[in-house]
């Protein structure tokens, strides 16, 4: 195993370090809180000659994603980074990146969408982009954000995949919170990500191609079908890349993280930083002899529904914690997906409830999560669900 160094680092610093080590050909980005520092640190690396990157300062996120698409189509390893309104402004170009099968990698620092205007964390930005054809990988802390970003390059560029990939972490909680992380040596990352060698690219003047041609009712459907097929390949590539990453880092990654889940009778499903808080609650309740567990989503798009359903089958009650609302009146986006996944799970139907929490950066604490486990144990006992969707931590 390679030597790595342990540092005190914020999520933004860790992600910027990963980008420096990846040393992409092109970065086009626009600053937005709480992502700003990533771009700021990276601009320093460019100015100081620490990367070979062509850094394109653009006038908006729409232009940032457009320039990244252009660079990627030209044959470059291209990256950008954003948050919230910035991701919203990239929207139409997100679909172009995936439709053109460009393996762009972008860290996204989760922040609430306006209105009301708010700069703090929730997942409404990336959840809104869940159908855009991008791979979405979520990160609990700075370590995971760093590790996931490095792995994302290999996942996105894999010949079976060729899909843009966003790696998320929670705004401020992780992006600005100082944490403990182990960083890999530069040469190790350089070797791991390797050179990007696209099969077809615009700057290949010997083999001219057309990118973005008109595609009417005669072929559009077939190209969208290809996109769906590419997503079926992602799961195996994610696992293969994780296996190789373990060899250089010693750190283990999967499609999701099952924490004390095997023998648990009730479980919480959660994404990103709240999983850290919830694991501490699991440990405390386990000490009291309660059979509680947790499932933390890592790969959200494509959704590893079969594996998740298997992991949760046989549980007496499951609570899904959503840091975004779908406004469908059926709960948050993660809950809706989970319920669909569990429809075909073997055995008796698992009782499921949803808690929408933390919108606009509202804290979620250990007492609240312990309260969710209390509710689950009551549901497990009685078999009754009195309230399928609860807004957790809102003032009534």
């Amino acid at each position, binding site marked *: 195993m390679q030597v790595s160094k342990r540092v005190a680092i914020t999520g933004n610093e860790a992600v910027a370090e990963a980008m420096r080590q990846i040393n992409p050909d092109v970065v086009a980005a626009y600053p937005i809180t709480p992502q700003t520092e990533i771009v700021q640190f990276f601009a320093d690396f460019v100015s100081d000659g620490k990367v070979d990157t062509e850094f394109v300062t653009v006038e908006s996120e729409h232009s940032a994603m457009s320039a990244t698409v252009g660079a990627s189509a030209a044959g470059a390893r291209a990256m950008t980074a954003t948050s919230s309104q910035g991701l919203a402004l990239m929207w139409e170009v997100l679909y172009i990146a995936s439709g*053109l*099968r460009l393996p762009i990698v972008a860290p996204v620092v989760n922040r609430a969408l306006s209105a009301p205007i708010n700069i703090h964390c929730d997942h409404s930005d990336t959840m809104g982009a869940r159908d855009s054809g991008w791979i979405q990988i979520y990160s609990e802390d700075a370590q995971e954000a760093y590790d996931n970003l490095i792995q994302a390059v290999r996942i996105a560029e894999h010949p079976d995949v060729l899909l843009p990939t966003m790696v998320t972490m929670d705004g401020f909680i992780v992006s600005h919170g100082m944490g403990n992380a182990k960083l890999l040596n530069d040469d190790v990352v350089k070797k791991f990500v390797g050179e990007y060698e696209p099969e077809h690219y615009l700057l290949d003047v010997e083999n001219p191609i057309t*990118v973005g041609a008109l595609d009417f009712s005669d072929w559009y*459907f*077939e190209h969208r079908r*290809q996109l769906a097929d590419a997503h079926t390949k992602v799961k195996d590539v994610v696992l293969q890349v994780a296996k190789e990453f373990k060899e250089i880092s010693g750190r283990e990654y999967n499609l999701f993280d099952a924490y004390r889940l095997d023998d648990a009778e009730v479980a919480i499903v959660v994404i990103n930083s709240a999983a850290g808080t919830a694991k501490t609650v699991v440990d405390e309740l386990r000490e009291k002899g309660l059979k509680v567990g947790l499932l933390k989503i890592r790969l959200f798009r494509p959704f590893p529904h079969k594996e998740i359903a298997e992991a949760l089958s046989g549980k007496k009650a499951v609570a899904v914690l959503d840091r975004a609302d779908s406004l469908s009146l059926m709960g948050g986006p993660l809950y809706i997906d989970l319920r669909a996944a569990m429809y075909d799970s073997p055995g008796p139907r698992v009782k499921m409830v949803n808690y929408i929490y933390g919108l606009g950066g509202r804290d979620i604490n250990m007492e609240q999560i312990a309260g969710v486990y209390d509710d689950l144990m009551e549901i497990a006992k009685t078999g009754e669900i009195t309230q399928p969707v609860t807004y957790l931590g809102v003032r009534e």
Partner: protein
Amino acid sequence: MSAVEKGWKDVPIGGLILEAGSAKKYETGDWRTHKPVWDKEKCSNCMICWIYCPDASILIKDGEMSGIDYKHCKGCGICAHECPRKCIEMVLDTGENGEAGAGE
């Protein structure tokens, strides 16, 4: 469309086109509702229609206009509008390619 017998596994990903000049294979003539009908007798071969045609559908042979490429003509009517001698008329297309003019 000529290639619909192929499926989604048979074509380049992302809508990429891997060869030059492939627009020729994309026959846009069936987009047309009205078609230009050329009166060879009135034509002076000034080539103004050839200059204006956005789809390169005015056919030329030995320096003279020889007809209209109905496989690609979208029926925009620019040729009829620009013709100084009014020898191109737009008529409702009945779907029978090549019945007017000396084109394909």
